[in-house]
């Protein structure tokens, strides 16, 4: 067991760094370089975790690769406990990785109030890392709520025309879900305390509760699900996402699609389902219907979009719906597929948002009507665009394919109808993505714009993302290996409860 509090450092390094950046607001140049430096160091710190040769060990708070556990609010039984396992390790890595791009893509795009902008970007990174590491339900809730605030400011200050509407909608939507989760969380805490005499927020100990009664459990699970479904977002509570994406600055969209949406699925898988296994059983059909429905509905709407960013936003909803299907089917294969797909979606969609942002910088528009014929003007850009579009479609050899196949194969074994429907939904996705590629890259240019191909900064960013996309696509073994142990542990734990 490691004595050095590396997890705490990983959380608070960007948060402390964000204040340093804020203090340096007078020099935008310094702010940019400082932010990049802080993000790179954070990435290095996370990468260092891979070299620690961590082995899972059992603790009173569950089995973890690393656990940091201190008293926080003793008489409430709330602890400052951070747990690292394969899933959180991957997601934290994703956060640190994507955040570098959030900094880089904003290098030139953000030209006013630069200090505050990078302050929020780094602050958001810290809270997201904290969210993925929290092993205490109250601590998790704290991070869950705090992460809303940076995004609110990012969209509201640096967004496009309708930014205030979008920011307020985002905040009210997310908050309404999480407040109901708060009630459920308190209720669970109180009931668990009554049952066992131990008042605690430790997720692991809360899972050991006795039967709560079907109605109670359904209500509690429903409240958690509402909060997470809004964040994922599942239909019919998805309407904030396209608005927020359209109005957000590119870095905001990247963080939102790449990272914030993952928190919903993560929390659903990590907290809601293991805490309420009986209710989960009952809710699985609902989740499947919402998932399949969302997959089709979002793809259908995406076809009708004229704004590229909105199209990518809807494709995001569609992809997340597939992930939810995988989670709902709940076996080793689909779970691995879904969790892997979270990473893949984070990479591919972030890349697409970054490229849409680049187009926006050049044409000051995101409308299909003024695109077209870009290939001849920006060949390097177009190559990358095609690559990420194909990856998003699920081309074999690229990352999304692995996740999708795992979900489909796992689903086919138990629920063939769902698998077939999902497959059709994925094909739907191919249509709108091909349309996007065709309208943007090929054909005749429909408006006069000054195009310039990628500069060094942009090339490096896209090349790094492409490398990640390719390596997961061609060699997903190490990633899946990381996910294996925690998934097995969780399934075992649920199995011990004697569920069908």
């Amino acid at each position, binding site marked *: 067991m490691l004595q050095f509090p590396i997890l705490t450092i990983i959380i608070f390094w960007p948060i402390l760094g964000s204040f340093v950046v804020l203090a340096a607001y007078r020099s935008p140049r310094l702010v940019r370089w400082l932010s990049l430096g802080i993000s790179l160091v954070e990435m290095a710190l996370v990468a260092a975790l891979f070299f620690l040769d961590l082995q899972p060990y059992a603790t009173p708070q569950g089995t973890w690769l690393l656990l940091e556990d201190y008293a926080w609010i003793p*008489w409430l039984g709330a602890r400052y406990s951070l747990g690292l396992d394969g899933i959180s390790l991957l997601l934290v890595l994703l956060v640190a990785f994507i955040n570098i791009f959030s900094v880089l893509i904003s290098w030139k795009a953000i030209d006013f109030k630069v200090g505050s902008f990078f302050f929020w970007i780094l602050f958001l990174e810290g809270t997201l890392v904290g969210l993925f590491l929290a092993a205490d339900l109250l601590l998790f809730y*704290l991070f869950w709520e*705090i992460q809303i605030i940076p995004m609110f400011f990012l969209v509201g200050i640096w967004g496009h025309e309708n930014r*205030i509407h979008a*920011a*307020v909608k985002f905040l*009210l939507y997310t908050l309404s879900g999480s407040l109901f989760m*708060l*009630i459920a969380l308190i*209720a669970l805490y109180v009931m668990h305390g009554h049952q066992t005499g131990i008042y605690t927020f430790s997720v692991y100990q809360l899972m050991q509760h006795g039967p709560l009664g079907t109605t109670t459990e359904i209500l509690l699970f429903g409240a958690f699900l509402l909060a997470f479904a809004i964040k994922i977002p599942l239909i019919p509570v998805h309407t904030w996402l396209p608005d927020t994406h359209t109005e957000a600055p590119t870095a905001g969209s990247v963080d939102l699609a790449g990272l914030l949406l993952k928190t919903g699925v993560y929390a659903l898988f990590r907290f809601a389902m293991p805490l309420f296994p009986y209710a989960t059983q009952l809710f699985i059909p609902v989740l499947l219907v919402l998932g399949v429905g969302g997959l089709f509905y979002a793809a259908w709407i995406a076809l009708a979009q004229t704004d590229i960013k909105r199209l990518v936003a809807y494709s995001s909803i569609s992809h997340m719906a597939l992930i939810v299907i995988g989670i709902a089917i709940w076996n080793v294969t689909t779970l691995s597929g879904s969790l892997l797909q979270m990473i893949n979606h984070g990479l591919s969609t972030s890349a697409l948002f970054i490229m849409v942002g680049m187009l926006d910088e050049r044409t000051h528009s995101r409308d299909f009507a003024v695109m077209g014929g870009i290939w001849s003007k920006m060949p390097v850009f177009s190559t990358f665009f095609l690559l990420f579009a194909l990856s998003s479609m699920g081309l074999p050899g690229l990352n999304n394919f692995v996740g999708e196949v795992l979900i489909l194969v796992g689903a086919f074994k138990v629920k063939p109808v769902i698998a077939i429907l999902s497959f059709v939904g994925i094909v739907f996705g191919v249509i709108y993505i091909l349309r996007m590629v065709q309208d943007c890259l090929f054909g005749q240019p429909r408006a006069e714009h000054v195009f310039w191909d990628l500069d060094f900064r942009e090339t490096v960013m896209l090349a790094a993302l492409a490398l990640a996309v390719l390596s997961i696509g061609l060699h997903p073994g190490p990633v899946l290996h990381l996910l294996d142990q925690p998934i097995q542990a969780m399934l075992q734990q649920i199995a011990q409860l004697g569920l069908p």
Partner: protein
Amino acid sequence: MTINIPIFHLNSIGPALILTVTAVVILLLDALSPKGRRKAFFPQLSLLGLAAAALQTYLMWGSKGTDFARMIYVDNYTFFFYFIFILGTALTVMISRQYLEDYGKNMGEYYALLLFATVGMMLMAASAHLIMLFLGLEVMSIAVYVLAGLFREDPRSNEASLKYLILGSFSSGFLLFGMAMLYGAAGGTLYLDELPKALAGHSTFAQPLTLLAIALLIVGFGFKVASAPFHMWTPDVYEGAPTSVTAFMAVGVKAAAFAAFARVFFLAFPAFRVDYTMLLWVLAVATMTIGNVCAIAQTNIKRMLAYSSIAHAGYLLVALVAANQLGAVSLLYYLLAYTLMNLGAFGVVILVGRKKDSYLNIYDYAGLGFQHPALGAAMALFMFALAGMPPTAGFVGKFYIFSAAVQGGFIWLTILGVMNSLISMYYYLRITVLIYMKPAEADLGPVAFSPGVTAVLAATAAGVMLSGIFPGALYDLAMNAVKIFPGL
């Protein structure tokens, strides 16, 4: 005929005594010192008196008992509220000076009245007998009536004072009626600790009489804490009164009224818990909802904060409804947190308002975040805290209150409370949106950061954050304080 004077210890009312003496000294100095250079040191003198009172309270912490013929309690519950009052008054004194000088009203009697009001609050929190409670209430109220009318050339201030006086007297009448009926029902006692027994075994008339008395007491207290449907005075009085007095009323008067409210209901009526809980449940929901919904429509920042203060009274009533140990703790914690965040917000209002309150519209806050970053950030923080976002003290307070309600089995009350939080988010958020996301409508110009207000903003902002992240120490204190209620 001999008169027996029971033994008493002046020490037991030490803090109140110190403040009384300070106030009298200020009045004398104001009257006797030569004109011209006499006003400068009153704030400092008041702060000195408050510090001495705080020290005295600190030294007494832990003692337990009654004094003055069992008229007052000497216990940690009392002392915790002493701290809240002292803190509230001290912060009010600090934000007042510059503001009053702008109006040419930096007078000795202002500080003396603040201190007298604080003495009244202390007696309310300490009272062990309903007559004592009434005396404390009146000492506090009369001082505040005068304070509200401090700007006597300003018609709105006059209106505020008069409205508060008339309606306040009316509500005092209700309170006295309630006490009189209780006196009859209990067969001749108004000691809080004797009431449960006295009310238990008497004639058949006792029960309806007690219920009526409880209802009347609720009316009286409900007026002072600004709970619906007795809240009508609040927006007008808060808007018209000098801003520093508004801050004092929102924080101090409310805390004092809740101190007495909670003590009376937790101690005196255990047999009637079901009845009064039902009534308070309805009041809590109505208060939260009316406060929050009306606040959405306000464009004057003081009126908005007035409705927000009504809403907060509703949350605090939830803690009373829960009527368990956590509920009592959450009441104490929330009042302290509310003191910090509300006084901070009023500090910003005073700084932005400047020069005879010319900038009180919420749209005057547009662009504040970039014209005056520190001020904007502070206001945004206080707004998030009042809305109950983590990691601020406001979140911890709400968390305790809702936990208490869930623990007490009031699930629907909790759900309604949470939905109200969401509504409140909207109007607090609007201020934040204006501060950061709208261009300035007018150039606000330089803001004169007086040392007092700056210190208040820094202290309250730090307090709101720190007690939000590390709520442990305060919880222990509050838990210590509510141990005196054995029935919870």
